[in-house]
């Protein structure tokens, strides 16, 4: 899994040792990355976002999908959800 190789700092700095590319993620992006690495499903992450921020599960899921879409464009995510 591509996420495993990433070096992720608490400040949201992400380094990919394989490609040499760097990225920044914001607080929510960081949360999603961490939970994905822990192996949580998108629904479970949406649930956490709902608890943490009080947004609806639907909005959370829509935003996670959009985030993963961006990750996929950068080659950091493959379209195998769940």
């Amino acid at each position, binding site marked *: 899994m591509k996420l495993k190789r990433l070096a992720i700092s608490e400040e949201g700095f*992400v380094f990919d040792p394989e490609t040499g*590319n*760097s*990225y*920044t*993620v*914001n*607080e*929510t*992006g960081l*949360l*999603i990355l961490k939970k994905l690495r822990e192996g949580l499903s998108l629904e479970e992450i949406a649930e956490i*976002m709902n608890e*943490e*921020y*009080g*947004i609806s599960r639907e*909005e959370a899921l829509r*935003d*996670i999908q*959009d*985030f993963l*879409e*961006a*990750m996929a*464009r*950068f080659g*950091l995510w493959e379209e195998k959800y769940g």
Partner: protein
Amino acid sequence: MKRPYQKPTILKLQVGFLREKKSSLSRMVRQEIDGVPVAELAEKFGSPLFVFSEKRLREQFRYLKRLFEGHYPRVEFSWSYKTNYLDAICRIFHQEGATAEVVSNFEYEKARRLGVPGDQIVFNGPYKPKEILRQAVLEGARINVDSLDEILDLEEIARETGEKLRIGLRVNMDTGIYPRWDRFGFNLESGEVLNVARRIAAGGRLEVVGLHCHQGTFILEPEAYGRAAEKLVDLSQKLENDFGWTIEYLDLGGGFPSRNRLKGLYLPPEVAVPPLSEYAEKIARALLTRLPAGDYPLLILETGRALVDEAGFLITTVRALKRLPDGRRAYILDAGVNLLFTAFWYHFRVEVEREIPGPPEPCVLYGPLCMNIDVVEESALLPPLARGTRLVLSPVGAYNVTQWMQFITYRPRVVLVTENGNAEVIREAETLEDIVRREKIPEHLK
């Protein structure tokens, strides 16, 4: 208390794009226009919505008037109709004492309909249909002639009326700016103006009483106006000496900039656009040093953009979110270049109706048209926006509500926030009926 939510973002770091991002956040929020909340305006009148501020219109007019009158004794502001000819907007400027500057039959008729007397109208433009020209002559409008053919038309009208007609000449010249607008009026440096003057004098039916020069648009060089004023004074003295005419007015046209961000200009408008006081100083200095004391012709200014642009806002709503192949976000707005003709030349200020948490990231703002050119802003820097977020674009007061087009959808309402803080509709949204009313179906297609 839950923590404020930011949409998740990931940005790839690329050399050349590793810029500072925090300082620009605070300026991107606009919650109200002259005290009326943006949300209230949009909910009551719909989105998209043009909003004009009466307070700003009047204040800017009074500011400019004071400014120029402080430098030169005789100044007339002639409201440039083409910039924004909504009745309510024109009324405000006429109330403040502006005459009307029109460039077509439609604009002439609109000014007359608003109750502006003919002698309070400056009539410019390269094509003045004969009928309207005749009416303007009879009603005593100031007519600035653009071509020799127009002189022929006026001589013919003069024959009909049996009176000598008083006209102005439109002159184009080198004032050191680019591009040079040399297709309007008669060229100074080539001697064309003097040839035309001789022709007019020989005809005996016309008399030149004014000179007009409109150098261009969004002119960022105050000195150019100084040079134009100098050249017009020199020309007027030559015409007075050679032909015995009395030049009663010098019209320096418009072209004064607003604090809008012209595309291709790197510096922000606060720095790139000189203060209007510099224009007033240059013009007045050129006039006062060349004119004999006490003999001051009327100075006419046709300021449009500088008066109205910054009083106009457009409220628009994010209707859809997209992710482009290069990873950038894109937003589909309910207003595009159909309403914002000036988006082709200017980068508007983009403000969000409320503080949105999250890092600003490069994004594209698209309009609702099914055309590739419908781009409101090709590179905005905005925090991630949710569907339904309202944006406020400004300044959009100049040229948009005259050059907007009715293409695939209706044109929205225009409201005026009055000086008392009420929002009043000054143009209703179009309906299907408005658009089809003038259509006819031939019998065989019914």
